[in-house]
């Protein structure tokens, strides 16, 4: 659907308005608030929705304020194959006129025209989608529910291979779903409630009918069985009566036979009893004989045992005597060993005492030696200490002397080098005098000397030579004297004559120090913790004590400690040997005692046994005597023979009686059986008679019930219930299978629809929100979630601006998806109010691109907001200026054309192209209606 022209007259505040929007692309109608932009948008729907005589509030509100004028709306429209002009006048002189130019010319008026126009729209477009493609500022920003619009679904269907079908398929699906819900709940369970049949209810009816039929059939079967049984019982009773007579006759004959046999049996039993009595007597005698023989044999055994015990007792006497003697000997040996051990221990103790005495003597000797060393060392120590105390040569004095000596030698060396040298020689031996000292010189002897001060040589002939050294030599001479004096001063303080003596004295001092230390250590070692006097007194006491001990000791005291130790070791070894010997004797003694005790115990046991056996022998002899006395004169063997002969005779009689008894048949068991059988027959006969009487009564009662008729009815009811259930289940199964199959295919189709829709919206969205933009569509093809940079948000979490932008983009995407013939204009009224300038800059070209195949009418009171929309046709209100904005153009400044002369109050605006595009008379008088 496309609007080619829209004309309004006396429409609310608008006196006259004509606009020709672009057939495809964006037409921007801009103007300030209250100029009637929204009224123009409203008229696009109202002209089709309202009849010209409508008294609805929407129509009443069209009337211009303060004027009694009719409102007129006229639109030129193409939709599908139709092209028509539709005029409608409301209020006074209401009128509707439809002039169809294509596909064939047709003119209609009134309600017929109204209906025809709506029919054309319904035939060629999705009116609901058209409504949905309108977006007003401030309206709900809920995303477009694209799944509700058949034209869009048709478009998606085409893209997805026409999978969704049309209205008919949708209606069919709803009918299938209704059919499904007749049998099943929405969650797929069997329907078990509500009016009308359902599977549980039908099953219960079938089961109840089946139970009733079974109950009646069982009742009939029971009665038939009872009738048959009654017949059987009559035959049974006749048979039982005959059996009863036969058994009673048999019972009489058996009674007679049984009584005769009982009598013979009594005689046989008497004979058997007598035979048993005689056998008992014979056995008693035989037992007596056996008992005597037993006593006699036992007596012989005990006598034999007595003899053996006697012999054993005699045999044990000798070993016992021998063991007792050995025990006495060993007890003596043990006493001797004990004495030897005591003697050895005493010897060892004495030897130990001698060792201690010798060790004490050794200590006295050592103490004497220590005291002697102390008495020798103490005077020497005192001498050494006295010398050291008097010695003045210490380390410091020695160092001073050495230093003074080195100074003297140094100055002396300098003086030698600085002094004048004299050398006198002569051709002949000549005597001379040098500083008063005579010297000889000659051809082979020369006098050489040094002069440090003034030296005088007197030569033969009265020659005197005075030689004076230089000043330096004289100064050195003085220095040497001073150094020599200093040296001598040091020597005097150290108490020595020379430096050499000082060094020797120092060496002697060191040796004396070492000696003093040695003596002091030795004295300290000898004294230990005693003084010399204390040591001396202790030594005297020990000597006195040892002397007393030696005097008191007898001869045999060892001469030395080693001898004492040797003697002690020997005594200790002798003591150990004595102890070992004592142990051996003690062990032998223990063994001997054990042997004697064992033999004595055996002797006691044999004696006791002998006494016991003797008592047994006496008892058996007494018993044998008693038996013989009881027997009397007749031997037991004879009595036994007589008794056995009597037994044999009785046994022969018994055998004869038993043979006779055996010849008679034993009918007692048969008699009992017959009696039991007779009682059983009587009982069964009575039972059969009773049962037959009951059956006859029951059958008589049941005869009047008409059970077979009831059974036939119940079985019919059961069959009908089963058939009804089967048919119901089959219908329910068919409905479920059809619904499931249809639902599955429909879901698959819906999934396929979503793709082109999503791609269209995402294609636009990526240009606005960036390449990471994505959406998730619901089953109803509604945007439910949005992602940017990987983070998914529910639509409700988005900002208002983004939701509005998504709403616009969704409508543009939907409009682009539907076919040109199916499509409807997108009407946007003051949208993008929440978009920032940068976002607006992006949205403009996108809006223009998306509208290339779609007619978009954009109303706004903010002209600058859509500067970036190009190409576009821009119509400004109220001036009516029309501008064709090309792609890449910036919005130009508006150019307002002057009002046409003679057209008071009406302004006509011409676009820059010079082509009239729109005509406005917003405030002037409208033309008369009849002029159209």
């Amino acid at each position: 659907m496309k609007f080619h022209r829209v004309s309004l007259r006396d429409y609310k505040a608008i006196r006259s308005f004509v606009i020709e929007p672009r057939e495809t692309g964006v037409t921007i109608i801009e103007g300030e608030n209250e100029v009637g932009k929204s009224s123009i948008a409203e008229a696009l729907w109202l002209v089709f929705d309202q009849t010209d005589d409508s008294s609805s509030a929407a129509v009443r509100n069209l009337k211009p304020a303060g004027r009694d004028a009719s409102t007129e709306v006229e639109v030129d429209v193409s939709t599908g194959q139709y092209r028509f002009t539709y005029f409608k006048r409301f209020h006074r002189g209401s009128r509707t006129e439809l002039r169809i130019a294509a596909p064939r010319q047709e003119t209609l008026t009134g309600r017929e025209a109204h209906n025809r126009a709506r029919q054309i729209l319904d035939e060629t477009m999705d009116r609901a989608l058209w409504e949905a493609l309108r977006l007003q500022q401030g309206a709900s920003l809920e995303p477009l529910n694209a799944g509700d619009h058949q034209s869009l679904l048709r478009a998606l269907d085409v893209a997805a291979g026409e999978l969704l079908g049309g209205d008919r398929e949708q209606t069919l699906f709803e009918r299938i779903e209704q059919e499904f819900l007749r049998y099943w709940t929405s969650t797929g369970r069997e329907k078990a409630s509500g009016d009308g049949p359902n599977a549980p209810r039908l099953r219960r009816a079938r089961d109840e009918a089946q139970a009733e039929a079974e109950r009646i059939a069982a009742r009939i079967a029971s009665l038939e069985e009872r009738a048959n049984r009654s017949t059987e019982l009559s035959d049974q009773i006749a048979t039982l009566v005959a059996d009863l007579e036969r058994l009673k006759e048999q019972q009489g004959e058996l009674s007679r036979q049984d009584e005769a046999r009982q009598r013979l049996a009594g005689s046989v039993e008497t004979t058997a009893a007598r035979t048993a009595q005689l056998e008992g007597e014979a056995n008693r005698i035989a037992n007596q004989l056996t008992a005597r023989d037993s006593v006699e044999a036992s007596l012989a055994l005990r006598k034999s045992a007595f003899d053996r015990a006697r012999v054993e007792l005699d045999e044990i006497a000798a070993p016992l005597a021998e063991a007792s003697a050995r025990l006495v000997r060993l007890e003596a040996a043990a006493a001797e060993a004990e004495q030897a051990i005591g003697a050895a221990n005493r010897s060892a103790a004495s030897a130990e005492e001698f060792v201690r005495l010798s060790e004490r003597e050794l200590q006295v000797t050592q103490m004497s030696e220590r005291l002697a060393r102390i008495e020798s060392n103490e005077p020497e120590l005192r001498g050494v200490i006295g010398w050291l105390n008097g010695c003045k040569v210490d380390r410091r004095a020695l160092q001073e002397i050495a230093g003074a000596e080195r100074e003297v030698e140094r100055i002396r060396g300098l003086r030698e080098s600085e002094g004048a040298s004299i050398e006198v020689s002569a051709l002949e031996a000549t005597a001379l005098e040098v500083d008063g000292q005579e010297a000889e010189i000659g051809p082979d002897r020369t006098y050489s000397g040094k002069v440090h001060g003034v030296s005088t040589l007197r030569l033969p002939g009265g020659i005197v030579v005075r030689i004076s050294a230089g000043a330096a030599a004289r100064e050195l001479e003085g220095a040497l004297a001073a150094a020599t004096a200093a040296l001598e001063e040091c020597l005097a303080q150290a108490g020595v004559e020379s430096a050499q003596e000082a060094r020797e004295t120092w060496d002697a001092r060191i040796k004396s120090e070492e000696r003093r230390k040695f003596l002091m250590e030795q004295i300290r070692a000898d004294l230990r913790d005693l003084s010399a006097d204390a040591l001396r007194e202790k030594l005297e006491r020990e000597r006195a004590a040892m002397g007393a001990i030696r005097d008191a000791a007898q001869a045999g005291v060892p001469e030395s400690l080693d001898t004492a130790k040797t003697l002690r070791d020997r005594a200790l070894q002798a003591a150990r040997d004595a102890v070992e010997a004592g142990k051996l004797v003690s062990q032998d003694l223990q063994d001997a005692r054990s042997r004697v005790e064992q033999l004595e115990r055996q002797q006691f046991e044999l004696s006791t046994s002998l006494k016991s056996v003797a008592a047994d022998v006496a008892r058996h002899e007494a018993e044998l005597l008693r038996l013989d006395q009881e027997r009397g004169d007749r031997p037991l063997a004879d009595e036994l023979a007589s008794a056995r002969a009597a037994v044999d005779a009785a046994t022969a009689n018994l055998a004869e009686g038993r043979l006779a008894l055996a010849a008679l048949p034993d009918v007692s068991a048969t008699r009992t059986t017959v009696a039991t059988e007779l009682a059983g027959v009587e009982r069964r006969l009575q039972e059969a008679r009773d049962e037959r009487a009951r059956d006859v009564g029951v059958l008589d009662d049941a005869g009047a019930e008409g059970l077979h008729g009831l059974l036939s009815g119940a079985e019919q009811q059961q069959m009908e219930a089963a058939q009804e259930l089967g048919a119901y289940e089959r219908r329910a199964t068919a409905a479920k299978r059809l619904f499931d199959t249809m639902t599955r295919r429909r879901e698959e189709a819906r999934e396929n629809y979503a793709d082109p829709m999503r791609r269209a919206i995402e294609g636009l969205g990526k240009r606005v929100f960036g390449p990471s933009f994505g959406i998730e569509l619901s089953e109803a093809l509604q945007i439910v979630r949005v992602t940017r940079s990987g983070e998914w948000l529910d639509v409700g979490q988005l900002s208002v601006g983004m939701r509005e932008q998504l709403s616009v983009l969704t409508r543009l995407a939907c409009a682009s998806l539907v076919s040109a013939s199916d499509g409807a204009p997108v009407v946007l009224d003051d949208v993008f109010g929440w978009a920032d300038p940068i976002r607006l800059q992006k949205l403009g070209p996108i809006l223009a691109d998306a509208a290339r195949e779609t007619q978009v009418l954009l109303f706004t009171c903010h002209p600058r907001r859509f500067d970036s929309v190009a190409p576009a046709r821009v119509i400004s209100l109220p001036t009516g200026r029309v501008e064709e904005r090309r792609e890449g153009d910036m919005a130009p400044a508006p150019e307002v054309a002057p009002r046409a002369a003679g057209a008071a109050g009406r302004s006509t605006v011409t676009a820059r192209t010079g082509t009239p595009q729109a005509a406005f008379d917003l405030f002037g008088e409208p033309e008369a209606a009849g002029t159209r």
Partner: protein
Amino acid sequence: MSDTDLLVVPSETDFSDLALSGFAALAAGDLAGLSEGGGIEGREAGDALLLLHRLARGAA
């Protein structure tokens, strides 16, 4: 004779006459394929097809 013994089974032509499209046509094809397979599932699919036929004629 039960009510399932006597059925009016639509022919393929009958289904063609229904002129189903989209998912409905696909679902009808599914059921037709199953019914040709026989057995319990085939019988159920045949019943579902009969039901579809009845409902589709009503929805036309």
